[in-house]
């Protein structure tokens, strides 16, 4: 993996605070990162902070970063079940001249401009096309419920705490969810497993 380039990318994202996207490092490997995308204005996603799971493979930047929404989101091109994203630049339109920042900015514009003709979530896409007001309402309520900026960062902090204790990240996330966000209870759950 080209660590030099990733470090330069991270520095550049850090320097640019106005773009509405940012990246956090999880632990001490640069393989697993956390992206944050601010919901674009004048959309049902406004006011939300969307957390993105980023996995960099060894071949990065020759292959696209693997990105997935951790925050639940109601959007034609994002799976409402697992956060999988349907976006060309994260697939065959990727180029090594693109960066984590441009990819996250693409996600931001995808939030602003859904492409229902190339859907990831067929149910949402159908609703988007046939009952647009209903779609907007649902997207807005999901944003309020799941993409709360304060919630996003505290949630990530809690996951980070558990990961620092040595627990697996996915397990920590599941345990936290089951424990209703209580770190102590989540830890007990993880220990009893």
């Amino acid at each position, binding site marked *: *993996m*080209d*660590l*030099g*380039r990733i470090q*330069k*990318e991270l520095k550049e994202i850090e320097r640019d605070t106005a773009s509405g996207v940012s990246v956090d490092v999880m632990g001490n490997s640069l393989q697993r990162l956390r992206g944050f995308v601010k919901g674009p204005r004048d959309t049902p996603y406004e006011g939300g902070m969307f957390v993105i799971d980023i996995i960099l493979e*060894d*071949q990065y*930047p*020759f*292959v696209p970063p693997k990105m997935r929404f951790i925050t639940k989101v109601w959007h034609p091109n994002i799976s409402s079940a697992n956060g999988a994203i349907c976006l060309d630049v994260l697939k065959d339109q990727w*180029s*090594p*001249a*693109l960066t984590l920042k441009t990819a996250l900015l693409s996600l931001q514009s995808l939030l602003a401009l859904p492409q229902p003709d190339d859907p990831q979530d067929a149910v949402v896409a159908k609703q988007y096309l046939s009952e647009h007001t209903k779609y907007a309402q649902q997207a807005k309520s999901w944003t309020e419920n799941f993409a709360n900026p304060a919630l996003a960062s505290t949630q990530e902090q809690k996951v980070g705490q558990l990961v620092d204790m040595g627990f697996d990240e996915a397990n920590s996330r599941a345990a936290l969810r089951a424990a209703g966000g209580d770190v102590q209870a989540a830890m007990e759950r993880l220990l009893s497993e």
Partner: protein
Amino acid sequence: MELERRHSPHQASERLPSLVEEHSDATGAFECNICYDLAREPVVTMCGHLYCWPCIYRWMQVQSHCRVCPLCKAGIDVEQVIPIYGRGADQTDPRSAAEKDILRDGPPAATLPRRPLGQRPAPIHRSSSFSMTGTVQPSLQFIPSIFGFNSGSGHGHAEPLTPEQQHQAFLSRLLLMLGSFVIMCLLLF
């Protein structure tokens, strides 16, 4: 090579302060668009974008169907990159280059072909029609060239001429023919 040296000292001293301040910007113009480092074994694509040879070669190998420039999506090919030979280049120890991450994950050194060589087009003679004033050539020697035979005296290479050059050569031959015809007329009559 001499040319570069001739006009560098002045400008360098004038630009030094700003160069130091904007160090990152100045070198930024010569950073590879893939690894973000100063381009190693630099090559430039026909569309003008700079890369390390190992980086762009690897990208060409990754792309399965059609090979495009990472920045502008213009078509690129192994044979269609121009190497850049800067001063002080090739002084880096190739072994240290091999330690670079991108090479380590990329094609092993054995499979990475040599960077393509630069092309050497023929020099273009400006106002070529009567430029042979300095050298007095026996008239017999340039008669063949009038009729399209290359005497080979001034040209040490065999690259094909571009259409433009061919056109120019044709024009100059025509003028030469006319000129010698006039002189012949003057001499004979």
